[in-house]
């Protein structure tokens, strides 16, 4: 029972890291970026290449996955995304889904279509028993990293100067610019940071979720569920939503395997009926 809860939390944490970048772009920058999964996949492939081709330690791969994906995000934001901030949502969707397909084809071309595997350092593999509860070491590692990141993210957004600038830029772009906030720079950094988080999520998820060229399409639906259930105005909303979905998914598949895969969708529908703007919305949009 507790093992199931633990697995669910680990899975939820992973979903959160993968999806929280999307919360930032979607909620704060008001940009529908379906290509988010492509950044996650990039992070995963960075890790695979570094570990399997160059034998670099897994611990170094994680920050590298974050940095490289963030830089890629920054480049794409400056060259492509920034022109679409004011476009309507349909254009954004078409544009970003195009990027997804290009990323899928690109990954297939360069890396091949097979599942990529990484070999974790021995201290992270296997499991241990704590008071009779079986705990996977890697899952524990995932939970710790993700919890720290979630906390840091919340603090950055609510307490730092950058966080308030970002929120100001989102609330009213013109006034914020009038007050001397360099909105394009704020947006670019935010976008890069969100992409980096996705890359980190992809790197950490390679072990649990697998990694192949269809990753962005396969997980797009999960990201969107997390963001739509959690709402896009806070970090804690998606965090709780991801937890809830992770636990519900794992428990559903354990206790009622026959209908397990439907549990999270049922949950999503109920949530959206009860709280159409997400778990913690600031009331109906702006």
């Amino acid at each position: 029972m507790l093992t199931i809860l633990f697995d669910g939390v680990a899975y939820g944490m992973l979903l959160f890291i993968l999806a929280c970048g999307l919360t930032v772009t979607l909620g704060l920058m008001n940009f529908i970026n379906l290509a988010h999964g492509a950044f996650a996949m990039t992070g995963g492939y960075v890790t695979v290449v570094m570990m399997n081709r160059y034998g670099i330690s897994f611990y170094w791969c994680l920050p590298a996955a974050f940095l490289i994906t963030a830089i890629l995000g920054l480049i794409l934001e400056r060259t492509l995304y920034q022109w679409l901030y004011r476009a309507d949502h349909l254009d954004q969707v078409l544009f970003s889904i195009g990027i997804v397909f290009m990323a899928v084809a690109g990954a297939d071309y360069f890396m091949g279509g097979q599942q990529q595997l990484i070999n974790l350092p021995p201290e992270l593999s296997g499991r241990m028993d704590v008071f009779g509860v079986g705990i996977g070491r890697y899952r524990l590692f995932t939970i710790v990293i993700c919890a720290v990141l979630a906390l840091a993210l919340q603090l950055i957004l609510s307490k730092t100067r950058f966080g308030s600038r970002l929120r100001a830029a989102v609330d009213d772009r013109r006034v914020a610019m009038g007050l001397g906030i360099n909105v394009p720079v704020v947006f670019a950094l935010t976008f890069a940071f969100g992409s980096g988080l996705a890359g980190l999520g992809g790197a950490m998820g390679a072990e649990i979720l697998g990694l192949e060229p269809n990753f962005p399409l396969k997980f797009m639906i999960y990201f969107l569920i997390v963001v739509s259930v959690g709402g896009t105005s806070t970090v804690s909303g998606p965090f709780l939503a991801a937890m809830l979905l992770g636990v519900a998914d794992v428990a559903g598949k354990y206790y009622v395997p026959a209908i397990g895969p439907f549990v999270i969708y049922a949950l999503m529908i109920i949530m959206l009926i009860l709280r159409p703007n997400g778990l913690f919305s600031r009331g109906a949009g702006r």
Partner: protein
Amino acid sequence: MLKGLLLGVAGLAMTLTNAVPVFAQEVVKVGLILPMTGPFASTGRQVSAGAKAFIAAKGDTAGGKKIELIIRDDGGVADQTRRIAQELVVNEGTKVLAGFGLTPLAMAVAPVATQAKIPTVVMAAGTAAITKASPFITRTSGTLPQYSVPVGTWASQNGIKKVVTLVSDYGPGVDAEKWFTKEFKAKGGEIAEAVRIPLQNPDFAPFLQRVRDAKPDAVFVFLPSGVGSLFMKQFADRGLADAGIKLIATGDVTDDDILNSMGKPAIGTITGHFYATSHDSPENKAYVEAFEKANNKMRPNFMSVGGYDGMALIYNALEKTKGDASGPAFMEAVKGLSWTSPRGPVSIDPETRDIIQNIYIREVKEVNGQLHNVEFQTFSALKDPEKAEAK
């Protein structure tokens, strides 16, 4: 309407241009439809490489005709497979269709094969019912029941009493579950639980935990090959092996192409299948050598052999008909064909048009620093049990 008209015109133009030049040697076009992109791209790569290896080894003429291979990508999507099959038959004048990575893809083509009387060689898909879908379908891979039953026999003979089955929830998975269970129960075994995993499943944790909590002697697994590697890692991570649960599976899980990347956790897995790269025979030695040379050291797996033997079947049938590739004549020739494949002796069942072959029980072992499926027991000349029973 307009599209149909255009297609018609294009078709007409094609037949006209085809009719004009008369070559000294006639060409038989073989349309190979495979998932070359998408999640099942590795199937397409292996099968097409196997088919090409056959042509490279045996030349490009059979029954006095020149064989021309046309490879098309369906991306693993059934309606694409069907559209491509129609195009190949109508526009390209393809005489034989082959390939088909997955059951639904093969099923989608069955009506085309029946209507156009086109011989269709299934080289990978493994659900038993496929050959029943059209009298023009034959197969050179194998069927899930065919290689699930021997695993059940082996398990019951080797002290395994209680098993949980864990399969992907689609055609082949259900086939594997049904036939393993049947055989294992008939031999006095007990199935503690039957778990089915959705095809698009990201995390195996809950299912594996369920297996662990049921405390069986072994878990019988069927998963499509790519997913198998991920499963293997989580199987080890969850400590199922330490809890005394043995992993037995169909050979799809320990696919030779990716077996090495699974690493240590895979060692000791017992699987049943029709081909292993390490199969000990002169035919296979030559095949593996030529294949690895032509494909940048890629290991040939069971799918590649399906492709190789598919071409062998087409060549043998054409020799027998003296180059007549018309549906009824070709299919008549296919029935009862037999030859020595890299996997061992194979033949085509005259009644079901399905393959009869040896099934090997193998154990994953480290050989010269590489992981291999090492065969240690042979079940000779097995027919597909599902169609054998239906009679």
